[in-house]
């Protein structure tokens, strides 16, 4: 019999019941909640007279709607009344049901996918869900992490289980070494460019290969975060020493003898040598360039030295039509060099790229330089209150401020523009977030997905440049 993949192992360890019809009940170790996808779930519980199954598995924080300035005023500081109601509703629900919540004024508040790992609430081998598609982020720890819908949030609250169907196994292997200036973000954008936004649909993706093994936890999180942009609900990286070191001493992580026991188990969380995958894709790390998205889907990417495509050159009529539509929306011409795309704003943040390493990379590029006067705004939004504190201890805030970037309070911010931070119509933004859909960052706004280093380089120049030319 062939060996097991990491996904097979995680699946087997969480299988509560296999039903005859092919569906299964999967046990959930950790449930993260935020204000946007939970209110209707709590309401459902209340209407049915149900209680949460296991309180200590839940952890909540508001992130999508929180303002990134003037946070001392807490909930009162949320200007939009509808946003405020949503945050207040989360507070009320957590208080009523007894769920631990890092509220808006808590230093531990932040984007759910940043605070889980930061607190050690995300541990190797866990099954983790959240009513947010970027829950795949936690797969970087060798977790089975799914984004779920609101009905499933209610289901998990009430039963501690999720009804699932086993997915297929897919391996994305990045061989060799990455060049200098090439980051986890470039790797994942290159992968999506290669396999497409539906390339992983129906599959759980494991990212492996030498290039992935050499990456930090932050970079692995960036890659798993965007699995969903490749169509896969689940993305994973096998556990190794990097993972085990990262979780050490975090507040929710096991300590002492318990940690030793856990480590013994964590070390088994990798695919067996003879495991068989349904689909395998390989990339050469040395061939990956810093990436820039030019269109309205994350698969519409090019290397920074490349060009905007020419729809005429696309044989598939549905894709050609997609390119034409994207170029019209983005206000770009076929064949223009990526480096000629001019920018109005720069956003460094989101659950993809707002961790300390991301901020360090961006700061290294802007240090001693000034933001281009062509820009209307360049802002940095740390992923959590604790990331913010650490960055300030390292002096990164001063580097950003001296260069002319804004230094904000933590939250989702301009990633989806549910709070006051958004793009104006027709504005181009270099963004370290994960989605470049039409209107995502504001009505008529034009998003270009890039790494923090590339966003920083764009901020200095007012247009895209190859960040490697700015590194010495």
């Amino acid at each position, binding site marked *: 019999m062939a060996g097991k993949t990491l996904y097979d192992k995680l699946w087997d360890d969480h299988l509560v019941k296999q039903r005859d019809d092919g569906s299964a009940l999967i046990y959930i170790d950790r449930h993260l909640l935020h204000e946007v996808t939970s209110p209707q779930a709590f309401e459902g519980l209340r209407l049915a007279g149900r209680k949460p199954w296991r309180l200590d598995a839940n952890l909540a924080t508001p992130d999508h709607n929180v303002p990134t300035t003037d946070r001392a005023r807490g909930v009162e500081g949320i200007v939009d009344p509808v946003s405020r109601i949503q945050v207040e509703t989360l507070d009320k629900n957590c208080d009523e049901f007894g769920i631990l919540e890092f509220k808006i004024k808590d230093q531990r508040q932040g984007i759910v996918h940043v605070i889980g790992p930061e607190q050690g609430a995300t541990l190797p081998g866990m099954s983790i869900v959240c009513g947010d598609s970027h829950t795949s982020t936690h797969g970087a720890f060798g977790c089975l992490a799914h984004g779920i819908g609101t009905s499933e949030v209610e289901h998990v609250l009430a039963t501690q289980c999720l009804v699932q169907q086993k997915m297929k196994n897919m391996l994305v292997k990045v061989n060799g070494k990455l060049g200098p200036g090439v980051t986890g973000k470039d790797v994942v954008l290159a992968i999506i460019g290669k396999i497409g936004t539906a390339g992983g649909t129906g599959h759980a993706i494991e990212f492996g290969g030498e290039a992935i093994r050499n990456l930090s936890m932050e970079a692995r999180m960036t890659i798993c975060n965007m699995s969903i942009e490749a169509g896969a609900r689940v993305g994973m990286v096998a556990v190794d020493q990097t993972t085990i070191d990262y979780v050490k001493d975090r507040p929710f992580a096991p300590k002492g003898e318990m940690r030793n026991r856990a480590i013994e188990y964590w070390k088994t969380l990798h695919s067996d040598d003879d495991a068989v995958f349904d689909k395998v894709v390989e990339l050469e790390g040395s061939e990956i360039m810093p990436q820039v998205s030019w269109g309205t889907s994350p698969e519409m990417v090019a290397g920074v030295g490349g060009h905007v495509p020419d729809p005429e050159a696309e044989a598939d009529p549905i894709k050609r039509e997609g390119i034409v539509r994207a170029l019209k929306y983005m206000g770009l011409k076929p064949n223009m060099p990526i480096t000629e795309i001019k920018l109005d704003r720069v956003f460094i943040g989101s659950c993809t790229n707002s961790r300390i390493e991301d901020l360090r990379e961006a700061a290294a590029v802007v240090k001693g330089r000034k933001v281009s006067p062509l820009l209307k705004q360049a802002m940095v939004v740390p992923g959590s209150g604790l990331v913010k504190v650490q960055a300030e201890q390292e002096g990164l805030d001063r580097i950003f401020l001296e260069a002319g970037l804004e230094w904000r309070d933590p939250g989702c911010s301009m990633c*989806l523009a549910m709070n006051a931070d958004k793009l104006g119509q027709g504005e181009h933004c270099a963004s370290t977030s994960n989605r470049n859909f039409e209107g995502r960052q504001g009505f008529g706004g034009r998003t270009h997905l890039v790494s923090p280093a590339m966003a920083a380089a764009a901020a200095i120049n007012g247009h895209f440049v190859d960040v490697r030319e700015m590194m010495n």
Partner: protein
Amino acid sequence: MRALKQHKGIVAPMDRSNVDTDMIIPKQFLKSIKRTGFGPNLFDELRYLDEGKPDQDSSQRPINPDFVLNQDRYKNASVLLARRNFGCGSSREHAPWALEDFGFRVIIAPSFADIFYNNCFKNGLLPIVLEEQIVDQLFQEAEAEEGYQLAIDLEAKTVTTPSGETFGFEVDDFRRHCLLNGLDDIGVTLEDAGVIKAYEASRRETAPWLFSADQNL
């Protein structure tokens, strides 16, 4: 949840691939803490020419005459015909809520994004995957003939055209069972409460650190 056994309705063809959930219901409408009332803002940015805001009277807004759902012949559509990778992007369940609130019961496409596909079943919406060539054919027929209707039979797992041509589709048994009977998933799962408790007890033995988070704080 509303049950769905058979359904026959007007087909609206939405000729666009990779329709994401931001497009189905833009984020400014996610601030609602209710499950209903999203219909007027379904496909908001495509449907209207101005920028949509919550709590607006949508009947007063300038509409985009080119958008399919604004054409009189499709106004009462209940079957949405779509292209590849429909429902990609964010996991927001507001997307199926909005489609359902508008009046859709069935969506047919060559492929769907996983989370969206799953969310549909929980809200009385039936997503049907048909081969690309068949979807192409349905697009042509729906565009050619005003009032074009499809008949869907979930029991028999078939889609039938006005000319009597029938296509079979696949759907997993559990989801089909729940949708046919309008069953609430949670109630079904709680019938297994004992099995869940037994699993928990054994995990407490083998992986106790997963249960001690509260003590570590």
